[in-house]
């Protein structure tokens, strides 16, 4: 068997306005991705439709998706941990993991949108402290620790879920010390090489104490042929990120330069492959997770992008689909 990486896609469940169809389309995208041989699908969490993300409840949607798929891993990319009640999250994640036969990959992050923190009655400035506290409580519960004076524990227990936690943060040494996976994405404020350095620091800090190997999920947007609508989506995204102080880099006049700065893969397939080869190298424990939609991308275009990845891009990077059992070769 090859030591290939895992191939995934990320949906931010974007839509310019809400209609229930955005959830049905996401379910459909998971089904198509599974048929194409993708190893994982990830959904992002957004509260109050921050940046047009329409899904505040990734575990609820993934429970529906689990009934429509059999094999594909179900990831959260990411859940905003400071805004969650940690024990409720541990319960919901465990139930979903049992419903999906152990397919959950639990990605966590600290969040960034100050308006949503205010709505939850939390201070945006305290989010890293809250993140650490909630993470400790989550690990405690998943680790079967007693939670009451009478010794009650989390129920149900999902075997191995504690080893499928991922963190999206630049504090990579902490992630390594905790034995968790690292989710990394392009940083518009740093040169593209910074990602390679980040992964190196993470791998160097790995202790292996929990008996698992270090693992990296590299998340990147891939828009094969950005059209005028995509361009508007991306410009609106940058303006919004700028207005809340998250995007501090210059705004480029040239759209191509904007795409490069944001790390959005685009253009001819050969160029995309070359850019992916420049990133951190991916081993058998790592995931390459590609986001193929902006706010207004129709489902058929997202499916087309997954097909291009499946047929032309991933194989050039050394990935092959896992053949279904019973397939003749």
């Amino acid at each position, binding site marked *: 068997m090859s030591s290939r990486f895992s191939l995934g896609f990320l949906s931010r469940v974007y839509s310019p306005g*809400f209609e*229930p169809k955005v*959830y049905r389309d996401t*379910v459909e995208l998971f089904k198509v991705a599974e048929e194409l041989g993708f190893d994982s699908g990830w959904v992002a969490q*957004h*509260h*109050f*439709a921050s940046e047009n993300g*329409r*899904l*505040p*409840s990734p*575990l*609820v*949607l993934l*429970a*529906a998706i*689990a*009934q*429509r798929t059999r094999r594909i891993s179900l990831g959260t990319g990411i859940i905003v941990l400071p*805004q*969650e*009640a940690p*024990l*409720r999250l541990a*319960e*919901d994640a*465990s*139930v*979903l993991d*049992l*419903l999906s036969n152990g397919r959950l990959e639990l990605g966590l992050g600290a969040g960034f949108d100050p*308006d*949503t923190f*205010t*709505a*939850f*009655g939390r201070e945006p400035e305290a989010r890293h402290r809250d993140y650490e506290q909630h993470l400790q409580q989550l690990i405690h519960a998943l680790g079967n620790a007693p*939670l*009451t*004076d*009478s010794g*009650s*524990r*989390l*129920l*149900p227990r999902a075997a191995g879920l504690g080893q499928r936690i991922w963190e999206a943060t630049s504090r990579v040494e902490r992630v390594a010390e905790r034995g968790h996976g690292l989710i990394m994405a392009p940083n518009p404020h740093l040169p593209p090489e910074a990602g390679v350095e980040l992964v190196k620091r993470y791998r160097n800090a790995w202790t292996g104490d929990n008996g698992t190997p270090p693992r990296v999920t590299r998340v990147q947007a891939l828009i094969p042929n950005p059209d005028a609508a995509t361009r508007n989506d991306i410009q609106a995204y940058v303006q919004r990120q700028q207005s809340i102080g998250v995007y501090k880099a210059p705004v480029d006049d040239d759209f191509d330069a904007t795409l490069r700065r944001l790390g959005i893969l685009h253009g001819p397939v050969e160029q995309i492959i070359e850019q992916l080869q420049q990133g951190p190298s991916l081993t058998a424990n790592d995931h390459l997770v590609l986001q193929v939609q902006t706010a207004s991308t129709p489902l058929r275009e997202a499916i087309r992008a997954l097909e291009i990845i499946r047929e032309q891009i991933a194989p050039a990077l050394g990935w092959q689909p896992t053949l279904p059992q019973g397939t003749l070769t």
Partner: protein
Amino acid sequence: MSFKLGFLSHAFGDDPQQVYRDLIEQFEVAEALGFDGGWIAQHHLSNGFGRLPSPLVLLAAVAERTRHIELGTGVIVLPFEDPIRLAEDASVLDALSGGRVQLGLGSGGANLDNFSAFGRDAVQRQVDFSDHQQQVQQLLDGEALMPHSALTLQPPATGLSSRLWHSHGSLEGAAYTASQGNGLLLGTATHDPLTVQKPLADAYLNAWTRTDRPPKIGVVRAIFPAADRAGAQAELAVDIERHIPRLQREGLIDQAVDLQEHLRLMNVHHGHPDEVIASLQQDPSLLPYADYVIAVVQAESSTQAQILKRLEIIARDIAPALGWRGRE
């Protein structure tokens, strides 16, 4: 008078994964039998007997396997929930299921041991309940949580705020439910139908003032039909005996008596379908009040085959005799 017919599961069982598979199958079978709804109780941590802390996650799976049946919670322990996260999860499930959610809420009176684990004070549970319930309701109505924030719920919850239910054990609680315009759930096993439940129902109806929608009462009843009375009792004996020490400890019964008497005290309608029909017709707080009759058909040691059989007998033989008209 007609009513909706539902069933309620506490998700008993040894292996949670199997319990969840069985629950999904119960919804599929109930839908095929014409049931209007299925309701799931939320139970937290390992000290209880129910195996499901996340009814909305499980109901999302059920939603993909069914088309019509309503998806109820009976009940969610509201003091343990963040109101925004609960409103979001319920609204996502409602969008996924085509508007099938019935959201039952409670204050956690049966979960007193677990409050500390969730960082809550059991003494404050009624205050937490009404705070959280009002916030959830505002969010579902599309209102912002002012002055805190001007943001409104996403996804918007079309109509879900008119599908909220409360479970209360006091007359004040029943009147409060009416003041909020919500449905009332009755029927804890230890609430006597005549001396406790009937006054609650009356207090609720007397306090109802809204003109834009009618009051609604859901009544939960343990219904265990079998070929005959002896057969039904044989299926229940182990579980009833298991409860006796707890009921005595909690002061709900004075002393252990015979099985018949325990079944009567716990208001378990059982026996041949004709006996069950007669017994339900005599229940003083059921048919005179119920807009939704919600059957509990699972005891702790019930098998899946027994559960599915009871659902079938209720839908085919019992509910029609009480005036139920199933979905066309």
